[in-house]
């Protein structure tokens, strides 16, 4: 799935040659959630935007935050980074409250809230230096490193006003990574990006979790994107947490091997398949059956040896989109 030949993210890149001492210790050994939402509510003008949200974000994962427009994703993210106050409850980042220990908590966070807005009259590098000066331990060498990581080296001395949206997005990722955050927060990062840009972003995120142990919290209303990007997702609608689930885990993949799933056979003579096996359902030129992997192979062999042409064999999987629509339906409007 990962393309190591991608020129933008060479697999040999080491963004963190000397990671901050505590981030190394926590990684793997410590199972403290990176973010803890503790009964968080946000009320503006009598309207409840976020309704008692309680959620833990595990370390070292790409965690998706999914919901239709207006579900409260951006409000939640703004509370996480201190741009909005929390009406009730608290949000802990690496164990520190964003309310009472803002400077300590936010130091662990890199974020892009909506579009990465930059000072357009400055060069890319001047923009990054702004943020480099504001975080301890970010020297010009680190700035170079990050610029290289996001593949902007060639254009970094040009004014941001000349950048394309994709390049601004990369600069946005760069400013978020400068201080080697434990947690990277991205709000609707694929908005306005072309497929190439989306793909690059996905590769950055994978590289980050893999090589630095960074936890990524990414919000989106695009299901297909989330499915490709995330290890786990939380679904939110109407300010309420609806569901939390892991995506394509290894355990799940192993379970698939032995579990019976619905399988569609596309055949030239589906009726004969029923005659031969006396099970399954025919619809058009397809024949559907519940079977495990071994049985699927046996059916195939049986059909072929009996002169039935097998055009395709497909497992029926409920896509995330179906599940998502099921979850959020009814809660809307």
């Amino acid at each position: 799935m990962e393309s190591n030949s991608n020129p933008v993210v060479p697999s040999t890149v080491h963004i963190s040659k000397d990671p901050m001492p505590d981030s190394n210790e926590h990684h793997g050994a410590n199972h403290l959630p990176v973010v803890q939402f503790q009964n968080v509510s946000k009320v503006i003008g009598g309207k409840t935007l976020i309704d008692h949200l309680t959620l833990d974000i595990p370390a070292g994962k790409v965690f998706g935050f999914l919901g239709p427009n207006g579900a409260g994703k951006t409000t939640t993210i703004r509370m996480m980074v201190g741009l909005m106050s929390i009406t009730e409850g608290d949000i802990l980042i690496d164990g520190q409250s964003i309310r009472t220990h803002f400077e300590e908590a936010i130091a662990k966070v890199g974020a892009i809230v909506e579009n990465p807005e930059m000072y357009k009259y400055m060069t890319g590098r001047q923009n990054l230096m702004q943020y480099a000066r504001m975080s301890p331990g970010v020297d010009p060498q680190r700035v170079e490193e990050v610029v290289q990581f996001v593949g902007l080296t060639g254009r970094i001395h040009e004014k941001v006003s000349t950048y394309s949206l994709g390049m601004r997005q990369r600069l946005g990722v760069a400013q978020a990574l400068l201080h080697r955050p434990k947690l990277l927060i991205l709000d609707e990062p694929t908005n306005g990006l072309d497929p190439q840009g989306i793909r690059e972003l996905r590769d950055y995120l994978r590289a980050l979790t893999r090589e630095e142990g960074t936890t990524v919290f990414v919000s989106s209303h695009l299901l297909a994107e989330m499915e490709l990007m995330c290890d786990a997702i939380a679904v939110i609608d109407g300010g309420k947490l609806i569901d939390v689930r892991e995506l394509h885990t290894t355990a799940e993949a192993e379970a698939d091997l032995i579990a019976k799933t619905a399988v569609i056979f596309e055949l030239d003579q589906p009726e004969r398949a029923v005659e031969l096996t006396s099970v399954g359902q025919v619809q058009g030129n397809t024949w559907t059956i519940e079977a495990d992997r071994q049985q699927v192979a046996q059916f195939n062999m049986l059909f072929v040896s009996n002169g039935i042409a097998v055009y395709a064999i497909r497992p029926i999987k409920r896509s995330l989109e179906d599940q998502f629509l099921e979850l959020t339906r009814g809660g809307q409007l």
Partner: protein
Amino acid sequence: MDFWRLVHNENLKIVLKKSTWILTILMIIGSPIVPIFLKLIDIPFSAPDVIYQSFNLYFIVIMLSLIIASESVSSEFSRGTIKLLLIRPWDRWKILLSKYISVILFSLAATIVFVILNIIFAYILFPASGNSILSAASSTPDLVLTIVYNYIRALVLITVAFMLSSLFRSTALSITISILLYFSGNTLNGIFRLFLEQEHREFIKYLLSTNLDLTQYFASPTGTFGMTSLGFSLGVLLVYMIVFIAITWFSFVKRDVRA
């Protein structure tokens, strides 16, 4: 961590902007107009008198500073960069303070340029001192006091513009209101004087515009309205400053960022 890095950031945001340079060049061109004009009408002034008169044009420095102060907070909101600025390991009040300091530093620099230009032009154009028509009648006010009084007015107005910038988060609104306030002050006072009964005029002495121009005490120790004094005006200005800064602090530090 060094707080001055924040101030350095804010200085760069001002200095790297092209519009700052255009306005500054206009200010530099405009600064020595008074000495040149006085030379053209060919009246024998002494150089110190010319410098004192040149402060009639100090409003161009004030206007320039008001524009910079108005943009300081609000442009971060209109650009959306506020979202990246406030998620750094700095409490909001420190970021606000760094912005205020950078605006003050800019106005100080503009003032210094203005004064130096006028001193140079005054002494080049009016080298012969002594036979001045003004200094014969009364002594020219002290240069340092003139600068300080004018700068105090600039500082109060900058604080107003900065407050409006933080309160409305709109550059246009804060520039307009602060410049209106600057120009309408004396007109308003005149109107009050015309239409109000003597016993109702008492509140005028607490108005910002009555006390803003401290050079009024060069002419009379009781000021233009004959009801204030230098110490009184300084006290009133101080109270106004504290209120303005409190409003600025509250509107920047406590409010949600929804831009």
